[in-house]
């Protein structure tokens, strides 16, 4: 009996030590976020560390990660564009076009779900597998070239970085994925003029025009904040203090090709995954942080400027304008009730654009810690 109790005590002690140890690692990572801002949730099997973020940064900018060594993650996710790409749709390493516009990588550590329209893709680790290994379309083109690509990282410099990040020198795609995920989680942007006004309480951080634009943005008249609300300007946000599940996807009335609300067959959004008719044309509301940097807009990059985006919403969805032109009366049944149209004076429109520009975080777009380490 005594022996048994002793064993239990020892096992319990070891267990406690291990448990406490893993907690400490996660707790010691210093997120570059202002005091009081909630911390992102991180998977238990990939805690953040500076060494992993550093390795991830090198991998993110390294063209050796694509099979034909022509592209890195940074090809389609450029820092000065808030880690998006100024193309309508991105083109993979073999020249194949993607059907969607490259999303900005801004505060995606907080994303409830990833990509434009997927209800359950909620881990960056799983998302990264798509551009790496995806075959339709080919992006980095890793599939079929795994060994060759891994051997390129068998250099002294990378061995040291892998060892620092994972405590062993073995190089594999699981570690590459975890390091990339850690770097992408580190792409945090909370230093816009809006943040200084709203959260640091600096009254002069925004101009009068920007404040007027902000009041409009949050008005019931324009309804912008219903989908682009919360501290990340997207309802698709999760963090340590918010455990309730919210996965908002919306149809913004971009298309209505048959007068019944249908989207083009090439991309019907969330509907493709859920097969729910009501999910026709539903896409995740992206963050509006740094939105001025990430043109063109919408899931298919079909709107070039912020002015035109506002025109689209003012009309209650671009598709509504086309339909009126064709004298068709039927409205899209899938369009979000918040996309109902509004009228703005030209002054109000320029105020609104001034406010959207106040969401640009210049220090993020030029932060040397996030830049190409090979330069």
């Amino acid at each position, binding site marked *: *009996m005594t022996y048994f109790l002793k064993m239990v005590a020892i096992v319990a002690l070891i267990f406690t030590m291990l448990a406490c140890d893993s907690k400490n690692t996660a707790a010691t990572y210093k997120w570059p976020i202002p005091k*009081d*801002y*909630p911390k992102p949730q991180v998977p238990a099997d990939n805690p953040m560390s500076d060494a992993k973020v550093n390795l991830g940064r090198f991998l993110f900018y390294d063209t050796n990660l694509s099979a034909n060594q022509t592209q890195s993650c940074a090809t389609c996710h450029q820092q000065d564009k808030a880690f998006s790409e100024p193309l309508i749709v991105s083109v993979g390493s073999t020249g194949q076009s993607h059907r969607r516009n490259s999303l900005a990588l801004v505060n995606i550590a907080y994303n409830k779900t990833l990509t434009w329209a997927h*209800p359950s893709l909620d881990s960056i680790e799983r998302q990264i597998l798509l551009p790496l290994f995806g075959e339709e379309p080919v992006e980095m083109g890793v599939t079929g070239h795994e060994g060759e690509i891994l051997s390129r990282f068998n250099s002294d410099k990378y061995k040291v970085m892998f060892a620092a990040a994972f405590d062993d020198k073995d190089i594999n795609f699981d570690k590459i994925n975890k390091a990339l995920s850690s770097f992408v989680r580190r792409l945090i942007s909370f230093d816009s003029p809006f943040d200084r*006004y*709203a*959260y640091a309480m600096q*009254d002069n951080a925004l101009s009068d025009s920007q*404040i007027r634009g*902000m*009041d409009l*943005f*949050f*008005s*019931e*008249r324009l309804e912008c*904040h*219903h989908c682009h*609300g*919360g*501290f990340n300007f997207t*309802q698709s*946000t999760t963090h340590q*203090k*918010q*455990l*309730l*599940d*919210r*996965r*908002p*996807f919306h149809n913004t009335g971009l298309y209505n090709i048959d007068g*019944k*609300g249908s989207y083009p067959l090439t991309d019907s959004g969330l509907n493709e995954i859920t097969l729910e008719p*009501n999910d026709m044309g539903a896409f995740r509301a992206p963050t509006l942080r740094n939105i001025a940097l990430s043109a063109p807009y919408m899931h298919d990059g079909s709107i070039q400027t912020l002015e035109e985006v506002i025109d689209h919403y003012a009309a209650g969805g671009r598709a509504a304008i086309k339909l009126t032109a064709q004298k068709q009366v*039927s*409205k*899209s*049944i899938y*369009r979000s*009730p918040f996309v*109902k149209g509004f009228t703005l004076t030209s002054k109000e429109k320029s105020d609104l654009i001034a406010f959207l520009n106040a969401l640009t975080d210049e220090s993020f777009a030029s932060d040397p810690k996030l830049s190409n380490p090979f330069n």
Partner: protein
Amino acid sequence: MRRFLITLFILVMFLLIACQNKKPNRLTFIPVVNGQPIMCEDGFLVNEQKWRLKSFQFYISKIKLNGEMQNINYDGNLKEVNNRLALVGGACRGELNWQIELNSEPELKSVLEFELAVPFELNHKNPLTAQFPLNQPDMFWTWQLGHKFLRLDLVSQTEKGENWSFHLGSTGCDSASVMRSPKSPCKNPNRVSFSIKDFESNKPIYIAFNNLVSGLELSKRNSCMGDLNQSACSALYQNLNQRVIFTQDIERTK
């Protein structure tokens, strides 16, 4: 060894009895229409139109039982919580939570009182530092207006593109901009108090949808988002104040 087992047995029995005694008070809400529960999956008829629920959630605060202020028991995993406030319901595409547990034990019958609101002193604060359950972006307007106290969104299944929403909260709040808090209470606080006499913790509290929208034709035009649409909002406010909205008697929901 035998003595040990007997002691263990007594301890377990003691624990079981103790736990049974400590079964806490629960408030279980069930939204009903035409006497039937409203579910996310099933449509329901209102004036011969079929509707589907998209989102139904609301805050309740100042919960009292027999005049005594109640705290809410939250899941132990939640770290920073506000025990004086509960968020009930949810959005159909996420999780819905219709039950809250109070930090008190049931009495046979008691008087339950609560406010369908977020108190002013909590309503206009920095949402980033807000404690659960106030850290809910789809229930927050701005610092100026504060939180939505109730959010109800319906989509018509009869008429394409038709929908109806009711977002309740304070209006007429004056501050330097939407990102600044008002210094004094808003002109229309829109906080409504409810009470249920003879409240029994083991029975559900029905939310009478028919009474809430009584006299109002559900349509996009008749949505109430703050104070933009005066006639729809005033009809709804009047129903909230004068009709039976929360009751344990299913007959009174019709």
